[in-house]
């Protein structure tokens, strides 16, 4: 799996920030919404105006506990601290965060392959505003002007810190992917990396043996997709190895991942690191959820991805490798209920899985409101032979496009009708008769012509023919 030079090993820990899907911000009543006009969801509290005070959003506490429970964390009484540093998008010039006593203590996450990654903590904190730098390189240094949008200021975040248990770039990606699925399943977060609602930082170090102490680590920022997590971790480990093999030393620093260049570069060194001067936030009181509340949250928690994958495995019996890949993807994308609904309706599990993993997963439309019963009904028609595979896919596309519908009516409107048994034989005979030279070569062993005949027959039947029946009909005539 690893592409590191022989004898080298990497050690990785990830810090994942996820925005919570609360209606309002962490410490005020402003809307927690992405994409609104800049500086419209703001008030004295999230603008840090003189005299304004924070009041903790209890829904954010509930969501943080959901995440903690989903990650098998210890849920504990906690408190907030102030993290002090100056930055224009942070209105109070300090961030309210949790420090020595986070709401979620140690837990773990099991990767689909079975590897267990420790979770150190998952704590609550507020997001900053968003700065856009105009001119220069688009970063603060050398820019002509900076515009700040405080709509994001005070949006609730949970920061999930893994233990340094990750051992490869692929594993880092798998961890981020599994965590993303868990966050979505918990209902606490939408996990949208492209909108920045889930952001990943990676701590990477390397060493010359698995029994050696950890090397000096670098923190990589700006990982905006699962792909960049894997690429950046791989790049960074190789960079550190090259440095060490040349006799150099790794400097502890924060580095920026440049997705286009495929490289990391120094953002700030340890010497330039802030002294955050953490101290207890005097404007807030400790968070002390009762056991009864925690139990209520636990009871209300939806099944997590691992459980949902196990449910699909049990439907399939003994899935093959391709099916395992499919079910991983289906659960990661939260589409497993389509499979389950179809199977419950009588569709065989492999068909339900493969159509969900391909036709549904590949759709660029939102599937949030898609009617699972309509999908199941379509697959039942296919299973019964009333629709060919090709026709079934076309009907599915239509159902997905409209969020539902009656597959029989859609099939009829497309002119898809079940071919009478004799009808296909007639078409096959006609196509063969029309292309005697090709038929002779096919019978002489030119297998490539199978596709030629299948295509002609499909065209003649407007796609209504079943691929398997066509294949069988051609073979029967050949012999």
């Amino acid at each position, binding site marked *: 799996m690893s592409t590191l030079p022989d004898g080298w090993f990497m050690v990785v820990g990830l810090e994942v920030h996820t925005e919570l899907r609360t209606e309002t911000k962490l410490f005020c009543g402003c809307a927690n919404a992405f994409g609104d006009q800049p500086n419209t969801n703001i008030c004295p509290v999230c*603008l840090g105006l*003189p*005299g*304004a005070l924070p009041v903790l959003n209890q829904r954010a506490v509930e969501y943080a506990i959901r995440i903690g429970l989903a990650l098998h964390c210890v849920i504990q009484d906690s408190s907030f601290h102030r993290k002090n540093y100056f930055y224009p998008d942070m209105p109070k010039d300090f961030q309210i965060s949790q420090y020595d006593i986070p709401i979620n203590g140690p837990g773990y996450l099991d990767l689909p392959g079975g590897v267990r990654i420790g979770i150190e903590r998952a704590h609550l904190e507020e997001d900053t505003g968003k700065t856009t730098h105009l001119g220069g390189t688009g970063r603060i240094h050398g820019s002509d002007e900076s515009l700040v949008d405080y709509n994001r200021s005070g949006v609730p975040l949970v920061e999930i810190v893994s233990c340094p248990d990750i051992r490869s770039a692929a594993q880092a990606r798998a961890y981020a992917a599994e965590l993303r699925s868990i966050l979505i399943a918990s209902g606490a977060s939408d996990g949208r990396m492209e909108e920045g609602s889930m952001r990943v930082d990676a701590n990477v170090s390397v060493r010359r043996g698995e029994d050696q102490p950890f090397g000096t680590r670098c923190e990589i920022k700006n990982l905006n997709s699962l792909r960049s997590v894997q690429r950046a971790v791989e790049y960074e480990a190789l960079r550190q190895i090259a440095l060490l093999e040349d006799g150099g030393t790794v400097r502890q620093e924060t580095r920026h991942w440049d997705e286009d260049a495929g490289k990391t570069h120094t953002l700030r060194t340890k010497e330039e690191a802030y002294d955050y001067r953490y101290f207890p936030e005097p*404007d807030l009181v400790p968070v002390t959820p009762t056991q009864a509340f925690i139990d209520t949250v636990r009871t209300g928690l939806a099944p997590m991805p691992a459980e949902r994958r196990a449910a699909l495995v049990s439907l399939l019996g003994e899935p093959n490798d391709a099916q395992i890949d499919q079910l991983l993807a289906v659960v990661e994308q939260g589409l497993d209920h389509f499979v389950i609904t179809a199977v419950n309706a009588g569709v065989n599990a492999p068909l339900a899985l493969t159509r969900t993993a391909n036709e549904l997963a590949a759709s660029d439309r939102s599937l949030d409101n898609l009617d699972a019963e309509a999908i199941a009904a379509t697959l039942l028609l296919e299973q019964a032979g009333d629709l060919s595979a090709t026709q079934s896919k076309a009907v599915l596309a239509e159902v997905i496009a409209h969020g539902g519908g009656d597959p029989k009516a859609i099939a009829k409107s497309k002119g898809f009708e079940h071919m009478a048994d004799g009808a296909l034989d007639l078409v096959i005979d006609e196509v063969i008769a029309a292309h005697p030279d090709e038929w002779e070569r096919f019978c002489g062993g030119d297998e490539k012509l199978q596709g030629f005949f299948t295509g002609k027959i499909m065209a003649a039947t407007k796609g209504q023919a079943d691929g398997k029946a066509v294949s069988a009909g051609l073979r029967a005539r050949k012999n």
Partner: protein
Amino acid sequence: MSIVATAESVRTKQTRAVVVADETLAAIEARDGDIHAFLHLDAESIRAQARGIDSQIDAGQHPGRLAGVPVAIKDNLCQRGVPTTCASKILEGWKPPYDATVITRLREAGAVLVGKTNLDEFAMGSSTENSAFGATKNPVDPSRVPGGSSGGSAAAVGADMVPVSLGSDTGGSIRQPAAFCGVVGLKPTYGTVSRYGLIAFASSLDQVGPFARSVDDAGVLFEVIAGHDPMDSTSLAISAPDVMTDIDGGVAGLRIGIIPELMDGSSDEVRARVVAAQDALREAGATLVSLPAPELLLGLAAYYLIAPAEASSNLARYDGVRYGNRVDGADVSAMMIATRTAGFGDEVKRRIMLGTYALSAGYYDAYYGQAQKVRTLIIETFHRIYQSCDLIVGATTPTTAFEFGSKTADPMSMYYSDIFTIPSNLAGHPAISVPFGTGEAGLPIGVQLLGPALSEPTLFRAAKFLETEVGR
């Protein structure tokens, strides 16, 4: 006339709120040129508010408990649309878009918000000399300070410009100027009065409270502003306190503690008046017990670490990015530095540096951490003391009002003027300063009554009693 009587007259149309307002404006006109208690005053707004009260009454409505009563506001409380500066150049010209909760409560009670009063910049000081807009003078002797940091609010009441005002008390900033100006001043139990809209100096210590000419007026104003506020997480979830029902209950049967250390270093004249107060309490049937508590004197050192530490963080937001004054620089960092260098006065800078240092990596445990341990020790000490008594009586300040410039060169001597008031803030307990006669030069002397959390009803009873005995 008490504020209750004023409100009653306004409500029954024996007088009109506009008349009260004009009298107030005339008094300010007559005195404030010399005193400089006000930083902002808008005569038209005062009259408009008063007309509003009168028209409510004319319409048969009940404008509230403070109908037409003029109240001056310390300029670290946010009032919508009215300049709020904290006596700092960095906030010069800033107008809050919202009302502090105490301002809302005053409006709802029908009070007329007179104007914003002077203070030491960001409430950091004990003389009002740290105001960026000039010092306030003591109405009793203009060569002397009115105390601080709420010097403007104390002087405005002391000079009879307004009957009552609001201040804030972080380490004595209500009680010390009350003592210096000869008025009543209460620092309530932490969490009884909302801090929402109070511009923070040290969040865990700050508390808004009343100044008044009489104990009764202070009690009424306290009842109006107190009570739970969901906008302040540290606000106590209790019903609004009632101090007026039993205010005339007297002191018979009360056990009153005397802490020798809370008299340490007092001048003879201050000590004499405190002893006179003790005698009066004893004669009225209170039991006085001596309870040494040297730990309380450690409060000063702890306070000057905790308060600056919190201040260093609270004042970080004045960076020139969003509001207030901005001094341009080559980049954001240079702009922030230039803004803060030009905008803050020396004392504010001193405390930001002290606080930053106390919180720094490697020093936190020795300074901030240690100070928090002392704070816990002081809370425990009070707990022990209040096993043996209901209240404590002592001096508010070691001396009477001092002369301008006498302590500005030596910050430590200025800090020492808070030594008797600071322990209550560290413990979150209430304390009240009541005028109890004058010293040799005719300068006011305040007696301080301290009590455990939520003991305001008892404090007011004892304060009311002392007020009646002031002639002794």
